[in-house]
């Protein structure tokens, strides 16, 4: 095994998939000569040439739509959108076209497309460059949305997304690119993940913490901190936002009797709202306390650091919500849950 960054895992997996299948090619702004705004495509233009690593003009609607059209003819484009904020310029192509073509034409044509894009705040990029709008895509039947949180999972999920015949939005996160984890020495040996499956990344008995992408990391960190206080938290990493693995969520909450959802997006109508609704429908009789959500403050994210920090969910805010929830169950003494 080798220890690599999330960034390196993505880059090596793209390369492995391009070597494996001639129909896989890359498109996006600054992915070639510039080697990617976040250097995910470093060295790939040199190795594969302009035919397979295609710099695009700044025209998200145009190049995402072109990737859809290429996918309709059997290619497997992997499009990079510099950040998920810019995907809004391609919303019509993603929602009205990529998601609809298979169904709208009676299953005659699939769209084997991957859109890679990072979300995430906390980089002092201001209101338009710090959003987490994966919800917009997770809402739409016909799309698949995945959000791996570790290098190994990123590799396995990217392979699954590229080999899948449907359009997949592959959510990355600015804060995850430098995180490290173990992968096989030869990344080609990584088995593709199963889209539509969540994972229990840490077993526990007292409470379920549910997160994805960056917050799946924060959840593990929080579980570790709580363990020192004698609290056993189970962590569910959603990995796939559409389809959503409701069974794994509900099974966990049925075991623990309470849940906190950690999400980087806004609370109102957010991903957490769907999880909470799922829990009340699937584990109502097992709940000992109301389901809590930890989510971003409902403001356009400010630039100034103290304001940005105050608005973003953190490990501390998650710890607070967990302790509040445990207190509400009455199962633990106030002393323990303080």
């Amino acid at each position, binding site marked *: 095994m080798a220890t690599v960054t999330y960034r390196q895992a993505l880059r090596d997996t793209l390369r492995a998939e391009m070597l494996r299948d001639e129909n896989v090619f890359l498109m996006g702004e600054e992915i070639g000569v510039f080697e990617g705004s976040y250097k995910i495509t470093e060295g790939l233009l040199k190795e594969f040439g302009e035919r397979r690593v295609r710099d695009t003009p700044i025209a998200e*609607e145009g190049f995402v*739509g072109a990737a859809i*059209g290429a996918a309709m*003819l059997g290619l497997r484009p992997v499009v990079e959108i510099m950040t998920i904020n810019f995907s809004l310029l391609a919303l*019509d192509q993603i929602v009205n*076209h990529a998601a609809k073509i298979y169904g709208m034409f009676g*299953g005659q*044509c699939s769209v084997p497309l991957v859109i890679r894009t990072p979300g995430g705040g906390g980089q002092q990029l201001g209101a338009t460059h710090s959003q987490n709008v994966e919800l917009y895509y997770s809402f739409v039947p016909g799309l698949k949305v995945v959000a791996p949180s570790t290098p190994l999972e990123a590799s396995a999920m990217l392979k699954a997304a590229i080999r899948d*015949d449907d359009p997949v939005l592959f959510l990355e996160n600015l804060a995850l690119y430098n995180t490290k984890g173990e992968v096989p020495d030869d990344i080609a040996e990584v088995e593709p993940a199963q889209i539509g499956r969540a994972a229990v990344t840490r077993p526990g008995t007292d409470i379920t913490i549910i997160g994805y992408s960056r917050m799946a990391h924060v959840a593990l960190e929080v579980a570790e901190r709580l363990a020192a206080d004698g609290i056993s938290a189970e962590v569910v990493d959603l990995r796939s936002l559409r389809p*959503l693995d409701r069974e794994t969520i509900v099974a966990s909450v049925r075991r623990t009797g309470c849940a906190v959802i950690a999400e980087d997006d806004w609370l109102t109508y957010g991903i957490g709202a769907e999880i909470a609704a799922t829990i009340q429908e699937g584990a109502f009789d097992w709940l000992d306390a109301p389901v809590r959500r930890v989510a971003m403050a409902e403001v356009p994210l400010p630039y100034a650091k103290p304001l940005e920090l105050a608005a973003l969910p953190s490990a501390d805010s998650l710890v607070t919500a967990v302790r509040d929830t445990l207190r509400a169950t009455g199962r633990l003494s106030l002393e323990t849950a303080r």
Partner: protein
Amino acid sequence: MAETTKATRSRRTRGAARQDTGASGAESEAAARDADAGPAGAENAQAPAGTAGGADADAETLVAYYRQMLLIRRFEERAARAYTQAKIGGYCHLNLGEEATIVGLMAALRPTDYLFTNYREHGYALAKGIDARSVMAELYGRSTGVSKGWGGSMHMFDVKTRLLGGYGIVGGQLPLATGAALAVSYKGGDEVVMCHMGDGTAAIGAFHESLNIAALWNLPVVFVVINNGLGMGTTVDRSAAEPELWRRGAAYRMESARVDGTDVLAVREAARTAVERARTESKPYLLEATSPRLRGHSVVDPARYRSAEEKEALKAADPLAAMALRLEEAGILDAEARDKLDAEVTAEIEDAAAFADDSPHPDVSTLFDYTYATPVPSELRRLPADPVFRS
């Protein structure tokens, strides 16, 4: 009849396409001079893709074109009737008046070439080679329809004849067609992608992004703007700062031309020039065809925004009547033969309508068949009243 004759003659002189080779500085200057000369000058300055008048089409071909145009006309009239009988739901945009453009464009394509259209597409589906029965059955929402009843009037698709979709969102098909051309180029194929749109589409961002990308990457795609003068009820003059839409090609150094869309041969010749340039040189092309919309935006639109004079003028602009007259004058198809052809075509359309009416509706059990091509666990397959969890 005198009006029609006059209109026909006028079209013959205007039949030649204008052309702009926006490919280099020198050529652009020529194009600019061309523009300065005004419309008449532009028409005469550069002979385009052949001339109108039918010199290079034999009688048999002309009759075949007329028959196709007639088929589209009778199909659309029948569709309008079925719509008012509530056999067809949703929106229903007709190609009435666009017949010569459609037949001319499709005559320039090989069967292996790809076509993307907008939502005004029944005639394109027919002329691309899809059986009238499948097209009508789609309008009726039946499982025998070309999109199995999932698409309706605006969303027809057929792998065999390579109609890669009618699209209901204005401009949505342009990036897709550009990408299909990218795939052709990537694979080293010699197919051409044709992408049809209305005049209103020239105002949308996807139009400009797609033309830029297609020209930048030398993609074999022919963009065809059907200029019928109206985006729903808004005239081109009220929506386009440059109402001569073909001139927009120059912004992308893309060869472009305008052709009289009521002259099937002029359209075919202009389209051949565009298609062959795309095929042999892998260069995109912007073709504008001026073509009347004989009725409202859709079946239910009475077009009150048109004056009585405008409506009267439309009658003279009918390409089908003009073609009939042309064939009669040339001694190719007399009134009797024309009536016989009409009866034949009408019977074919009636058969299509009967087939559609007799066809089964899609079974509700197929509701979840086409959400995903690759099955995944956890996909929620529930009807509105179903619980998320069944215990």
